[in-house]
């Protein structure tokens, strides 16, 4: 998985039904979600974005093919700037840099290989790679976007 980034567990778990007697505690659900996301990330994303989300070297510069290398997903990257909705859409559909010099997607879509819940779990994991300030920023962006018409 190339490009794009994270989301915060707090936001994700906000969409989960309130715990009832006998249900797993929210903290347990979060940790399971993150653990699942970490595993999926290593299987599908790490090859391009790095095992620890460190991204490709020189990711800010186009490579010899005129394509942008995979950016980091940790605090050095920009995934934390995107809302949950946007991150989900990019992982699902992929994305092509407007100035890409090839006809390929800059980041492939994973709609055919990851289930929606798996994408949510990857996003939950990515949020663990950010700073508290970045998580707060991203949470606000997610809330903001939920109040607006669909992004372009």
């Amino acid at each position: 998985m190339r490009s794009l980034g994270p989301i915060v567990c707090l936001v994700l778990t906000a969409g989960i039904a309130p715990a009832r007697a006998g249900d797993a505690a929210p903290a347990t659900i979060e940790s399971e979600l993150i653990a699942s996301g970490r595993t999926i990330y290593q299987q599908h994303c790490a090859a391009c974005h790095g095992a620890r989300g460190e991204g490709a070297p020189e990711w800010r510069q186009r490579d010899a093919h005129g394509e942008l290398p995979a950016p980091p997903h940790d605090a050095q990257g920009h995934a934390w700037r995107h809302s949950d909705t946007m991150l989900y859409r990019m992982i699902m559909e992929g994305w092509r840099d407007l100035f890409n010099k090839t006809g390929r997607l800059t980041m492939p879509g994973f709609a055919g290989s990851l289930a929606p819940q798996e994408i949510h779990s990857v996003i939950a994991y990515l949020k663990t790679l950010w700073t508290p300030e970045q998580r707060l920023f991203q949470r606000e962006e997610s809330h903001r976007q939920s109040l607006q018409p669909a992004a372009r």
Partner: protein
Amino acid sequence: MTAMLQRQVGIFFALIATFMATSAAAGAAEKIVALTFDRETNTLFMARAHELYRSKGEDWGWTKIALPPGVQGNAIAAMAAPAKRTGVLYLAGPGFGVLRSSDDGRNWVARNDGLPSGDIVALAAHADQPDTLYAYIPGKGIFRSEDAGAHWKWMDNGPREGIGQFIHSNMPGSMQTGWLLVATPKGVRRSMDCFCLWQDAGELAAPVNAVSYDPREPRNVYAATAKGFFLSTDGGEQWTRLSAPTSRITAFAVSPAGAVYAGTADGGLYRSVDQVKSWERIGA
């Protein structure tokens, strides 16, 4: 003796004031620092450091807009007219921050909540969202407001070269809602409005005074540089040099119909209606 001196000083300043007023009326104008179109009403706004005018339609009957007390003594640095908001105009400049008028400039309200200082040097309105604005403060970064300037939020440090002027574009292909095109001392820089990555827009490699785009075709980007006036038809990858008025262009705007209006360092205003093959000087 003292009274006589005071009288002479008073006469001196009165003469200076009279000279300045006469000079302004005769057209010895300050440089044009900002031009912007209200696309809803086809009104062109023109700002000099200490003067603001508007012209509706294309008759070039300029109406001077009185500046609010907060601006007097400071210099206007930037101006923006939002999309889909008739009669709304924003002014910005070091010392007074952001001012908003919703009645064609008759009344102004300060809109600075959340900004670390009022030292704004660049201001841009979102191409499509009427209440979204971007402001740049050197050393502090780019701030965004989504409620017509009532509240501001830090978004990014901006390109390391700093920002002289910028504009929001609805060129397709953004991860979010559009792009920011930035005039810097080293060329045009470009970022999606998620502020993911600042990139060089081509290789102008020259100080850029102003950048804008054709609203009919946002991939057509114009740049006024120290080397001349340039057009890119691919969103800022390749640039072609165009003709330019004799004076240095300090600000320009593209009308809804695609005409380019350029203000110059000597205060002149020019228009091109033929894809910048030629220019005509118009009243200003």
